[in-house]
């Protein structure tokens, strides 16, 4: 990091930060709106409009300004790459979908709510592009703190409780991670984890503190993606949060964390030079996540808690995409992430609607609800089938690419690879049981009285679109994969 510290560097960099700046402007505008309007209904309309406009603008700006090659900004604090842009776009899609799912009734403070969601979005976009420990930690906090508050703002006592727990757990992990960074600094003398100095130092004088530090940092990221063994916060938090926020938590911060984890792991992996078998460790972690997530979900009665465990298992699958440590694995990761976003939201959309209109909480409450809306019942079935990874959904293609990249990878020994493959796939059998619980109750179980029909609303239309997207991702995965193939991963 020998560039001159100059203000022109900062000014020049701002041009590449237009999406983030748009998000910042949006945050400010919504705060101002919150100051001006006090009528809740009015405020809701204004803030959601602002929110959607901001997110869409930011999205358009990302697409418009698609980075052709990687650009380092702000003395290496930030690196804009197409890989990062892809994940940023996913994050923004997630935010937009969250807005589509949010309901006026369940949100007490609209301005705060949208500010916080947008803050998480901003934090995530920055986090994905961060290249430096300080940026890393700041953007991470920008994700975490609004997340705590969003949870705590959630419905009543449960929300507060979950918020507190989430906060205590999260901030401890963050603190530990910060300590890890400080240790890593001691080992390498730099906070820029993609710089050559960092890598050289790690390659040449690897000492135990460096391993400890990397472990602490990875632990923090595993917490963000809610992977085993840092998954315990997720069920409580999801259950307490509204369906929209649960869906949001299970996708946006998770995908952001994943993108960064990919980057950090590649840095630590030192192009295969590291004495630590990162591939094997990630593989074991992923297996643990998949298995514990699935197994945990088996016993769940509460729909959102079940989805929390599902998201733990899915985190495992996403982690599995990191095992190959090569381009194809990352492409599989990108594909899986996009499909995961869609399938998770499709499922949560329907859960949200049933929760709102029919007060469905537990899986049993779904009994015979298919009569309430066949379309939605089919949508959630599609979403869950996709989560299992069965055709004809994008979930199948995602798993296909994932396991293909694993098959052909060389980062772990063939035996271990085969074990991962078989264990991973066998877990889908387990997954089948709990995922199909909901359609099972929906269709197979009867209820005494016929349920009231669900009204058609925006949410319904969106969820159908999401389900269709899942089918399209199956029939024409090339649309997305072709795009993904153009992205390259640069450290």
């Amino acid at each position: 990091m020998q560039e001159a510290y100059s203000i022109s560097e900062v000014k020049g960099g701002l041009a590449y930060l237009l999406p983030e700046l748009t998000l910042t402007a949006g945050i400010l505008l919504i705060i101002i709106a919150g100051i001006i309007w006090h009528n809740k209904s009015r405020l809701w309309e204004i803030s959601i409009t602002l929110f959607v406009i901001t997110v869409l603008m930011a999205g358009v700006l990302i697409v418009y300004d698609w980075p052709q090659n990687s650009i380092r900004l702000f003395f290496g604090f930030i690196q804009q790459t197409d890989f990062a842009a892809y994940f940023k776009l996913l994050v923004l899609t997630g935010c937009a979908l969250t807005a589509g799912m949010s309901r006026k009734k369940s949100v007490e403070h609209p301005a705060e709510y949208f500010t916080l969601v947008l803050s998480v979005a901003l934090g995530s976009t920055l986090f994905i592009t961060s290249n430096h420990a300080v940026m890393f930690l700041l953007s991470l906090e920008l994700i975490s703190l609004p997340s705590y508050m969003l949870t705590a703002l959630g419905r009543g006592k449960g929300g507060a409780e979950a918020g507190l727990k989430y906060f205590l757990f999260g901030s401890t992990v963050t603190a530990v991670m910060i300590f890890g960074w400080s240790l890593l600094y001691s080992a390498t003398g730099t906070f820029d984890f993609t710089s050559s100095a960092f890598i050289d130092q790690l390659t040449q004088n690897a000492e135990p503190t460096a391993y400890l530090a990397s472990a602490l940092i990875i632990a923090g990221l595993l917490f963000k993606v809610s992977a085993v063994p840092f998954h315990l916060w997720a069920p409580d938090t999801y259950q307490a949060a509204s369906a929209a926020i649960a869906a949001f938590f299970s996708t946006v911060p998770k995908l952001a964390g994943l993108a960064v984890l990919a980057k950090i792991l590649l840095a630590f992996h030192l192009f295969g030079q590291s004495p630590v078998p990162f591939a094997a460790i990630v593989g074991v972690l992923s297996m643990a996540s998949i298995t514990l997530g699935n197994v945990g979900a088996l016993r769940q009665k509460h729909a959102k808690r079940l989805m929390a465990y599902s998201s733990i298992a899915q985190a495992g699958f996403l982690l599995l995409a990191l095992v190959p440590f090569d381009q194809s694995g990352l492409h599989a990761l990108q594909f899986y992430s996009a499909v995961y976003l869609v399938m998770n939201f499709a499922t949560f959309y329907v859960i949200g609607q049933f929760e709102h209109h029919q007060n469905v909480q537990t899986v049993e409450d779904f009994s015979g609800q298919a009569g309430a809306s066949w379309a939605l019942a089919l949508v959630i079935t599609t979403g869950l089938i996709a989560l299992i990874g069965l055709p004809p959904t994008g979930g199948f293609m995602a798993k296909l690419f994932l396991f293909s990249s694993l098959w052909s990878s060389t980062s772990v020994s063939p035996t271990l690879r085969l074990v991962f493959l078989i264990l991973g796939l066998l877990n889908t059998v387990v997954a089948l049981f709990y995922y199909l619980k909901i359609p099972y109750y929906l269709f197979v179980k009867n209820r005494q009285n016929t349920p009231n029909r669900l009204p058609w609303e925006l949410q319904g239309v969106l969820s159908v679109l999401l389900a269709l997207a899942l089918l399209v991702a199956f029939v024409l995965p090339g649309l997305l994969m072709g795009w993904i193939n153009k992205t390259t991963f640069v450290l």
Partner: protein
Amino acid sequence: MPYLLSLLIFSPLAAVLLAGLLPSRKHQWFRMLALAVSIGQLLALIALFNSLSPNISLYYAEQARWLNISLGTWGVLQANYLVAVDGLSLPLVALSVVVLLIAVISSWHEQKNVKGYFMLLLTLNGAIIGSFCALDMLLFYVFFEFMLIPMYFLIGIWGGARREYASVKFLLYTLFGSILILIVFIGLYLGVGVVQFGQILHSFSVLDWQDAHYHMTGSWLTSSETYGGFTLKAWAFLFLLVGFGIKLPTVPFHTWLPDAHVEASTPISVILAALLLKVGGYGLARVVLPVFPAETIQFSGLVGGLGVVSIVYGGFNALASKDLKRLIAYSSVSHMGFVLLGLASGTTEGIAGAVYQMTSHGIITSMLFLIAGVLYDRTHDRLIDNYSGLSTVMPRYTALIMIAFFAGMGLPGFSGFIAEVLVLLGGFNPLSLVPVWLPALAASGLLLAAGYFAWTIQRMLYGPFVTKGFAGTLTDLTSRERFMLVSLAILTLWLGILPQGLLSLINPFAEGLSRLLSEHLVP
């Protein structure tokens, strides 16, 4: 008509979409729709048979690009919409069309959630025919999996008392098997590379998989490293054997079958037994044998042995079954053992016999389940011991039971005889890959079949008619039931008396496969 196969596959799926738009009160519309689709398929099938040219091995090949995805450094993944029929799949496609038509007729009086039922049935229809037509194995796998969920619901919603257990068990077994299949399929497409335009194309086409030239050097398909005593190819073979063996089913992966068949409603049992089991045999003949000829030879004893164990074990279990449907289900296990044995023999006759057996068993078992359904519809009782002297009150039914049971026993004149004799011939052939005592043991399956079927006739049809609370309910066959049973009986008789028509269709495939296997025999 160049798009005949696509028409066959997608007309039911299009009908599903149409059905989705129809109001669910109009029960009759859904029945008519399903019937119309099935009859349309039958007409298309006739058109297809009419224009078969005798000199080619693949008919009606259709190909369209589906996936063409760059996988970075290791080439391009290619999967196509590639459908065609040959001597293996055409009989099965024809069987599917017929059986699905029968299933629609058989479900005519289904009252529970008619819309959902027929939508699922149509979905299943498309998936089954699709899986028999697909030569691209990704496509095959998709159709293969696509059968699961409709079947789960069809058993789980419209089934009998223990339907939930049965459907979950069915799903558990089948998905477990399909995962083993998927692992190998992924490995296969990654290991097979066709160089085109300077790029390595990783293909899902089974035609490419069969071609040893395309097996990439350095990939697992060419390595001789052993893990646990077997090469990776051998492991792949075993995985597929288990995967498809569950579907077939072969002992010891068969226990889903009695439960699923017993709990499913009549039309669903018919589809399960007549078509879904065939997918297992089809997969073995389509993928396992051609792609792993050397391993087939290596494990032919195992495969044939599993077949014989299934024949004998299934036969004994059928003998001890008290429930009529369970008896028929176990007889399926026994009969499908012949498929394994025929394939394992590796001879033309054996393979042709195996394919013939699949077709024949499809027809015969449909009759059997329909027959069980006739009784169950009237009395809701499937226990053999609760019936006696039916021949006095249901003469037509008795006649058709006789036909079906004797067809099941492999009486000459029925299709089963031709198939079983061909399989055994294949096994006794000196070129056969299985030791000679295996087919000899398998022949004892015929004795067992005679035992359980004839004993059932003895118990249910003869003796004094005893009413156990269902005196008035036991009426003779309705014209709908008679139509189904008689048309199936005519089919099995036709295939039993004039076998050469179908056999000459199967022969080229069987010869090709047998030749391929013999090329890998170490002299």
